[in-house]
């Protein structure tokens, strides 16, 4: 069974966002997404300083089978990327909500959080 931590907000396209105590946002993909993708072998991350728009592509993840766009749940400026993923992209499979995060951003509109799905609503998306 997939895991849906309660402190996260989700896009129906399987990305998660977590509001950190300093107001920044950490972004990654869900346990359900990594399970669907299978063994992840490559990640292309955004540049630090780059602006991303909510629900637009910000990164690419490649499993053995296929390449998939990763959308940013929120708009903002990228302040950090998870460089661990460059050499060990398989961490996304083993730890999608912790060590396998993709990037952090300073959000430009916290109101966009309201557009995201709660863990309960997202878990229903995954059952469809």
């Amino acid at each position, binding site marked *: 069974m997939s895991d849906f931590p309660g402190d996260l907000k989700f896009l129906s396209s399987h990305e998660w966002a977590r509001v950190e105590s300093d107001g920044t946002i950490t972004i990654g993909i869900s346990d359900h997404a990594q399970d669907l993708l299978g063994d992840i072998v*490559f990640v292309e991350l955004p540049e630090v300083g780059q602006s991303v728009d909510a629900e637009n592509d910000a990164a690419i993840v490649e499993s053995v089978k296929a390449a998939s766009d990763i959308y940013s749940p929120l708009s903002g400026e990228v302040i950090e990327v998870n460089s661990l993923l460059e050499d060990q992209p398989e961490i996304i499979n083993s730890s999608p909500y912790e060590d396998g995060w993709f990037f952090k951003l300073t959000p430009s509109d916290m109101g966009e959080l309201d557009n995201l799905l709660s863990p309960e609503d997202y878990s229903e998306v995954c059952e469809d």
Partner: protein
Amino acid sequence: MNKTPLHNAHIQLGAKMVNFSNWEMPISYSSLIEEHNAVRNTAGIFDVSHMSVFDFDGDNQVAFFEKIFANDIKKIYKDNKAIYGALLNEEGGILDDLIIYHANNKFRLVSNCSTREQNRQWFEKHALEFGVKVIERSDMGILAIQGPNALNKILEIKEIDSKVNALQSFGCMLEDDKLYARTGYTGEDGLELIIPTQDINRLWDQALELGCAPIGLGARDTLRLEAGLNLYGNDMTINNHPYESNLGWTIDMSDQNRKFIGKDALLSIDQSKSQKIVGIILQDKGVLRSGYEITHEQGKGMVLSGSYSPTLQSSIGLARVDQGFQENGKVMIRNKVLNIDFVSPRFLRKGKI
């Protein structure tokens, strides 16, 4: 959607199922990379019952195959052996690639699943003049057991005749209606069992009990890619001739009197100008995928199949490129120019780098 006799078994094993040419098939059971490595290191079992099986009847089968098959059936028709080759149209375009097995004076043919209807009609059309009867065997299933330990596992299955161990590569034997052949699609030693559907589940269960790992179509694709084996529909289509598809070695014109379909068209092709299928290894980070554009000093090309190679632990692919390539080239991935090496399409030999 079509289902193989093992459909329930796949679901019970927790397989991810996908639509593959209108067949609901397992893409993977757990980790694709672990499945791939199981075949390279020990033994795995595949359900490939979606593939098409045809038997034939009549006195002039050899003449029939001499006409429709670009390889020469005379290489095997006196032995218990299998032969790989292409089915061509009059223009030399590849209709399909397939294996014809000959054992106990009977021919059995296995071709791809997406081309089943096309092939049946093609066989029936050309069988008429030879009085050959085409028998589609939808009552047959296929298991492939592959890997360095595959034969050891198979010899523990009592109902399989231990004579399979003495078969050479591409050797085969027929017992009742069960065909056992030393063929496969992984670059490993192994056996393919083309047997009645009612026998499939029993043999599958025994192989799993003996420690063969169930392998999905995902790992089947990475295994065949490492072995440099073409996938019809991906690496070659009806719009390609054999010389630009790495299948020149399967075109047998040694018997000058043999007229096979597509021969005249092939004779008019200048092979020195044909594109070639070549192996490529990505030297930078990333993953090669079908459709990416390639350039080299004297021409260009395109990636046909691309994936991550669990054995080489880098990205590899098959590409069709203009002649004149040397050791290195470039590939365009999402507007970035990355470096590739051109190599033999056979990335592995007998499962080794």
